[in-house]
């Protein structure tokens, strides 16, 4: 009898102990980040935000306002721009009008986001269209149905096909951790993706469309996988937790995990991103508090958040 593909993969890459992972990440939350190191961390987090709107009700107007926020999060000389705006494929050309050439990149979810339940041909066509319209980055979802059915080869082949369809654009592979459920599954799916990705491509936790989002636990499993893959092959894969990271405090805890797991080379927005929108204003609010010594009212900051 042949062992199921997932068991064979786990034998190769090793299992994860849930209690141990959660104990490890609890230590990140006790790190005390103060003064200059806090300011540095907050600004770093701003540069890592993929400012996102993924709603049925998105319009060119809404996207324009999102782009403006991405380019200028808050008045002041020292507030950096965010990394990217993240929109549906039909909004890519609208976003392009505002941010193309500005340094803020355009990311687009594709491949029948968020379920991925469409024929591969359709999903690939969607990717190609988004790239043609100007998407610098594509956020794809993996085929969770195939993964859970044990067809790991199919999952990996589909990712490889999307890599090809991306052309020059960066790819982010969404594992949808809440649907994979266990840390073993998350580790296995990370390796499936990383083995067909190019340096600088991402693995990403979630769509933000299910109840479970990025946690320090699944972030850690994926960071550990990235580290192991890098030490084995030399390929640097990037990471993007998405959904559920709403406060600056949480963002700093995720960055502590990066610092203590992957080190300095991953502390920049080509190697780490936050998929979030309401996070941005909390980062700005904390930065303003560090600068002025007083908390500002929420309405002090222009509001363009929706989505995650």
């Amino acid at each position, binding site marked *: 009898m042949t062992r199921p593909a997932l068991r064979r993969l786990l034998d190769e890459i090793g299992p994860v102990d849930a209690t141990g992972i959660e104990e490890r990440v609890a230590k990140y939350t006790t790190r005390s980040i*103060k003064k200059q*190191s806090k300011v540095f961390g907050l600004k770093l987090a701003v540069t890592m935000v993929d400012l996102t709107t993924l709603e049925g009700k998105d319009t060119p107007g809404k996207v324009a306002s999102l782009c403006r926020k991405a380019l200028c999060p808050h008045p002041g000389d020292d507030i950096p721009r965010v990394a990217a705006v993240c929109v549906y494929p039909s909004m890519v050309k609208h976003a392009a009008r505002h941010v193309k050439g500005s340094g803020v990149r355009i990311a687009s979810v594709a491949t029948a986001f968020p379920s991925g339940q469409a024929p591969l041909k359709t999903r690939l066509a969607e990717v190609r269209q988004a790239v043609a319209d100007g998407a610098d980055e594509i956020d794809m979802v993996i085929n969770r149905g195939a993964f859970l059915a044990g067809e790991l080869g199919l999952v990996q082949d589909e990712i490889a096909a999307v890599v090809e369809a991306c052309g020059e654009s960066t790819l982010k592979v969404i594992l949808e951790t809440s649907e994979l459920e266990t840390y073993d599954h998350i580790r296995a799916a990370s390796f499936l993706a990383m083995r067909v990705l190019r340096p600088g491509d991402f693995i990403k936790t979630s769509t933000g469309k299910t109840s479970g989002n990025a946690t320090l636990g699944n972030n850690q499993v994926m960071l550990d996988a990235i580290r192991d893959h890098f030490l084995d092959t030399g390929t640097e894969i990037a990471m993007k937790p998405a959904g559920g990271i709403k406060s600056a405090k949480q963002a700093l805890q995720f960055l502590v995990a990066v610092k203590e797991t992957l080190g*300095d080379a991953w502390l920049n927005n080509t190697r780490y991103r936050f998929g979030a929108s309401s996070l941005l204003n909390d980062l700005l609010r904390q930065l303003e508090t560090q600068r002025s010594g007083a908390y500002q009212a929420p309405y002090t900051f222009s509001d363009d958040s929706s989505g995650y």
Partner: protein
Amino acid sequence: MPAKKSPAPKSRTKVRELLFGDLWEYDPAPESAPAHIDARYGLFIGGKSVAPKSKNYFDSISPRDGKKLSEIPFAGKADVDAAFAAAKKAFPAWSKLPGKERGKYLFRIARLLQDRSREFAVAETLDGGKPIKESRDFDLPMAAAHFFYHAGWADKLAFVAPGRTLEPLGVVGQIIPWNFPLLMMAWKIAPALATGNTVVIKPAETTSITALKFASILQDAGLPPGVVNIVTGAGETGAAIVNHPGAAKIAFTGSTEVGKIIQRALAGSGKRLALELGGKAANIVFEDAPIDQAVEGIINGIFFNQGHVCCAGSRLLVQESVADAVIARLKRRMQVLRTGDPLDKNTDIGAINSAEQLAKIRELVASGVEEGAELHQPACKLPKTGFYFPPSLFTKVTQSHRVAREEIFGPVLSILTFRTPEEAVEKANNTPYGLSAGVWTDKGSLILKMASELKAGVVWANTYNKFDPSSPFGGYKQSGFGREGGKHGLLDYARLA
């Protein structure tokens, strides 16, 4: 921004490593809550703080910076006599108090400890050198938990053993070590009081401050005078307690060497004895273990409280097939451990408890190097004053090295390898100690097999250093006898009636 992609040329020869540099340094984050330490303390006898009849005091030094914190009274024989007299006087009323009433005092003590936990945590860190995050997140909550747990038992003593009830022994003499000063005090006092005994307790010479501060909690709780008496001093004070004719039982936690002296002294005296002594625990990692979590457990097992833990996982036994992978990961993990000022909230490894202990660690580490083991220490800047030792590991250790046999009681891990489960058991049990062990494997049946074959009081599976007041703790062989915590711990402070 990412460069435009082309398939990566894979480098096959370059040795890859991660860079844990200074791109994002954490600023100092010192805990600022006041510790409220008096310039001079008295002995706590008969519910009052009294000056020692010996008229002698000694300095308490903070290992953090070597500076004097306070003056501690030295209890001579006359002071110990006074403490026993007070405990004897308090015993009849205290032991006859309904269990429910005794429980109320214990609940009160637990709550007062919680109320003042930050203050006590800072005092514990200043006095003993452990990182503030450990005194804050482990020592204080656990100490309170022990009082809460035993408060619940006080009125249920008739239900510990079917058809029998528990009766107190009388006055118990207790001597505790310097590694968990307040927590060990809670482990000792709570079950003794719950079962109706009265207590004369002596904290360790280098860490008396939180015990003497604890006297104010006993006063605030309204505990009747004499139920708990706290005498401070050195070996001489301890000997006076052990040899006191008024002691019905001696409970000692500390070194095996002193434990043997006590056992000899008590022979034929009719006094009960419980000893919780040293350890040289094996932490056993099998090839199918979740490696990253095992590494985290190894780190936690040996570097918790600077390795000043009797159940520290100080001997790592790793299966040969994964030894290189485990060691590489351990070294990488050690790079992000932060050694330094224990009052800093980001410190993982604090100060060594005393100059004496530091000298002992240095001597044993030097012996390891001399005997041919390979020493690894990550680059780390240690504070210029105070007592510090970097986290260390020894590879190429064999069973006959001193670092594999003797308790170092410091942040030093000795790594040995094994080939089969049988060899792991043999090596793990090949020690005069038997306090604790750890097993790391993904296979449940192997855990159960190992747990039944390892001669250790506690066996942790896929975790390490986990404690609970309801779980009995104690050793085999030269790690001592008697149990603390749970029903077993209660029985050690009572006779069945």
